[in-house]
């Protein structure tokens, strides 16, 4: 179990984290650890705050309470300079891709290399082509972001996220919008990156089957709490109704499909 590992084995360690958006509590005192070298999945219904959690880990948002340590450093106590140094070692794949729209695919992948290294252009070219080959888009290198499909854009963003060979990569919904073939290739890619580059991967995903196939450990979030955790096998056999519902995708159960709201009938009948 991840929690029983010694602290040095945890690349990310979150303790007692609380975070609110306005009056809405997104996290209510959660604690979790991400073990070094492993693939950890974070799952949960849409709108529970998975993207928010990644942004907290990356230091783009600050928690109301609690701490987040990444590689031994308290993310929210770092100076801007140290935070930026830490971020060079973290890759993040945004849900939307977040490609720079004024550059083509090639230059997007080259961007972090050009910003942070002084490598000669020939070396950059080889690196970029290697990363693009890995995501199957070497042939698309002259396209502009607006000429890519959503799934392709996400794969380019993945190539960019691994350009600097980070210690840890956070994938926000890497599988959404992928056809079965590129999905299979991506699952394989994430797994092999993790072993060959001895990375740590955090995957946020709704695709239970694909994620369970490669994850070493899974956290299930709902309504600001961790409602289940364990290896995929442990979760499949969990006797918690919440986890069962999530792992099997049932619409009915303790986890609600709806954003918190007033009673439906009252809402329809009331005039406001």
């Amino acid at each position, binding site marked *: 179990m991840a929690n029983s590992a010694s602290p040095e084995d945890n690349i990310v360690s979150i303790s007692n984290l609380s975070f609110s958006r306005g009056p809405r509590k997104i996290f209510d005192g959660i604690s979790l650890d991400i073990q070094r070298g492993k693939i950890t999945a974070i799952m949960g219904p849409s709108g529970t705050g998975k993207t928010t959690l990644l942004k907290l880990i990356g230091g783009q948002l600050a928690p109301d309470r609690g701490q987040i340590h990444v590689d031994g450093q308290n993310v929210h106590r770092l100076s801007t300079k140290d935070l*930026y140094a830490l971020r060079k070692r973290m890759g993040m794949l945004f849900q939307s891709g977040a*490609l720079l729209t004024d550059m083509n695919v090639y230059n997007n992948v080259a961007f*972090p290399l050009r910003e942070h290294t002084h490598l000669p252009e020939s070396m950059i070219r080889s690196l970029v082509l290697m990363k693009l080959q890995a995501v199957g888009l070497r042939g698309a290198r002259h396209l502009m972001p607006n000429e890519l499909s959503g799934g392709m854009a996400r794969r380019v963003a993945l190539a960019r996220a691994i350009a600097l060979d980070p210690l840890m990569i956070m994938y926000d919904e890497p599988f959404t919008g992928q056809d079965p073939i590129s999905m299979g290739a991506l699952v394989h890619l994430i797994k092999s990156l993790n072993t060959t580059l001895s990375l740590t991967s955090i995957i946020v995903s709704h695709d239970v089957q694909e994620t369970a196939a490669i994850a070493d450990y899974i956290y299930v979030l709902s309504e600001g709490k961790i409602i289940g955790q364990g290896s995929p096998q442990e979760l499949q056999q969990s006797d918690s109704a919440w986890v069962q519902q999530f792992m099997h995708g049932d619409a009915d159960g303790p986890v609600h499909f709806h954003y918190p709201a007033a009673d439906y009938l009252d809402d329809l009948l009331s005039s406001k």
Partner: protein
Amino acid sequence: MLQFLQNLGKTTRSSFAKLGRASFFLTHTLAGINEVLARPNLLFKQMYSVGVLSFLIITISGLFVGMVLGLQGFNILSDFGAEESLGVMVAASLVRELGPVVAALLFAGRAGSALTAEIGLMKATEQLSGMEMMAVDPIKRIISPRFMAGFISMPLLAALFSAIGIMGGHMVGVGMLGVDDGAFWSQMQASIDFQEDIINGMLKSVVFGFVVSWIALFEGYDAIPTSEGVSRATTRTVVNSAFSVLALDFILTALMFGDI
């Protein structure tokens, strides 16, 4: 009444908060200027889209404004038999006032709105936070070069506007209305003072360039990251820039030319 006071308080507080964010933004932007100087390519690219692409609108508007000045000036001056002073009148109005002010207003409409929309959309599509996660400071990488490009382009565009405007005035006055060519130029040379007129006019456009670029970039950066938010921010850029330019113009004119 109580409601009104409450709203007033809220508005005041949020305006002050915005002013604070804008000042912080400006300091951060200025701190990035060093890095821009170290990578002039970033600056040249922005000089092109902010400055060079504004050439056409500045040239055409300058020409028409100059031609109108020629016509109106001739009408008034000929009543006093002073047509020969047309050159002075056209040049002084352009160099002192119309050049810097109208060029700044056009610049806000042409380049400022484009900057706001560009930055706002970059924010809405998470390009700015994507950069942050790649450990690239978006203010230094994206905002500072654009700020500097605007700041440098504005005086050049204002000078271009005045020069073309004088030619427009000459075209109408000398070419069409028969003012003496030699008198047009010699009177202008005799009366337009380098320090008093040209330097002061330049100074104005430097200030306007600073303020318009600041407003445009800040509104984009501070925009609510949705299509509606970006569209509102773009409008605010044009409106706030126009107000600021006109108000500052009065203040600067009072300081430079008035004996207040």
